[in-house]
Structure formats: structure tokens, C-alpha cells
């Protein structure tokens, strides 16, 4: 087990992957479930940015539940990031339970809890602990935050 697998199975109820996606103002396109997706349940939440920290963007969270840790984690993550970006998200990322806060979107202090992220330009993964915990990954996370003007 890695820190990542421990983190996504923390509840003891299979595995949960939390995908966050920022959409431009007014865009309400649905994120379509990728073909072949093996999650047992997908829940979508609109995160209410009452203090307007996201500068007018809207944020949605998709909690993907799996009965067991998916063996093809990389494929799952890539497919869902692609689905969110295809739906028009400016940026989308996977992060651990308890990491999200409007004041800490893709900030350095939560970068080690982000394990995949993408924008309309590129997708970057940190599925191994070593990459995710390295300073270089935190720099990339913060770069993405700046890229989308947060």
C-alpha cells in the first residue's frame, strides 16, 4: 500500500476518488461518465462559492466510488480528467478527502494532496508518493493555479 492508496480508501468503504472541476461562468455542460468506467456510484455536487474566491467560476465535485481500489487507477484518472476538460472545465484535479477549501484551491499547502490535474493545455499525474510529495510537484500545482488566474 502507498500513501495514495491509503488516502483514497480511508473510510473503509472501498475507494473514493474526488474530482474537482472549475468551469467558466455560465457554462453548465455535463461531465459525461467515460465509457467503461467501473465506478459503482458517482455523486456530483455544486460547491457554493459564496465569497466569490473563484472569480466568477463555478466549481463542481464528482465523488467516484469504487467497491475496491481500481487496478487501472491511471486510466480512470485520465479518463475523468479528459471528460471534465471536454465538458469545458478550465481546470480539473483529483485530490484527497478533506483537502478542498475555496481559500486553498491548488495552493502549495495542499499540493501534496493533489494527485492528478489538467487544464486545456496538459494533464499531469502524481500517482506515486515520491512525485506527489516532491517540491517540484507543488511548484506545478501552484503554476496551474496561476495559469487559471486564481
Amino acid at each position, binding site marked *: 500500500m502507498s500513501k495514495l492508496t491509503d488516502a483514497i480508501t480511508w473510510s473503509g468503504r472501498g475507494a473514493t476518488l474526488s474530482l474537482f472541476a472549475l468551469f467558466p461562468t455560465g457554462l453548465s455542460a455535463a461531465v459525461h461518465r467515460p465509457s467503461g468506467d467501473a465506478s459503482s456510484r458517482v455523486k456530483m455536487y455544486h460547491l*457554493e462559492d459564496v465569497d466569490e474566491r473563484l472569480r466568477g467560476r463555478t466549481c463542481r465535485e464528482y465523488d467516484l466510488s469504487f467497491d475496491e481500489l481500481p487496478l487501472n487507477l491511471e486510466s480512470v484518472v485520465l479518463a475523468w480528467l479528459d471528460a471534465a476538460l471536454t465538458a469545458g472545465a478550465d481546470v480539473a484535479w483529483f485530490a484527497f478527502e478533506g483537502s478542498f477549501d475555496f481559500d486553498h484551491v491548488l495552493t502549495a499547502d495542499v499540493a501534496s*494532496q493533489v494527485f492528478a490535474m489538467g487544464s486545456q493545455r496538459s494533464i499531469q499525474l502524481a500517482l506515486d508518493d515520491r512525485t506527489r510529495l516532491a517540491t517540484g510537484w507543488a511548484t506545478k500545482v501552484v503554476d496551474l493555479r496561476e495559469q487559471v488566474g486564481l
Partner: protein
Amino acid sequence: MRSGGGHAIRHLRDVGLIANSRSLISKVAEFERLTSPILRSPAKTFDWKVGDTMTRAFAGEVDGRQVVVFAAKEGPYQGKVLSAVVADSAQMAQWGLP
């Protein structure tokens, strides 16, 4: 509670303990009303990792259901509620809840 309420409110909303139709402010208030007694006087406490963050878990009963509230012991949200769940039977066994 972190800005936006976080996973804690969403999990309790999913199981119907918090109404979905209310404003965020109302949901936060309802969450605090439901969980304050647990945080003040828990039936059981234990340490548990939520995601990659060590937390102190506070367990108690709400409307006959076992609710566990997790407060961060480390990291940028130290001292704040990170998550909350209504424990199912497997989790009750896992955490030694009655």
C-alpha cells in the same frame, strides 16, 4: 468548518440528515447544530486518517444513527472539521462503535 462546508456537510446531506434545498449558510448552521453535541460530549474518540491528514474522530448519535466527525490534527486545516460520516455496519465494527 472550512469555507464551503466541505465533505462533512456533503456526506450528511447525502444521507438526509441535512436538507439539500437550503442555502449554504443554513446547511452549515444545521451541521453545527447536529454535530456540536458530539464534539462537546462524544460517546467515543479515536485517531483516524482522513485522506492523508491525521484527525481526531468524535463519534456520537444523531437521530438514532452513529455519526463520526473528523477534526484535523495537522496541516492547513488543523483544528477544523475535515469530514463527517454516518457510519455503516462495517465502519461501526472498524471503529468499535456500539
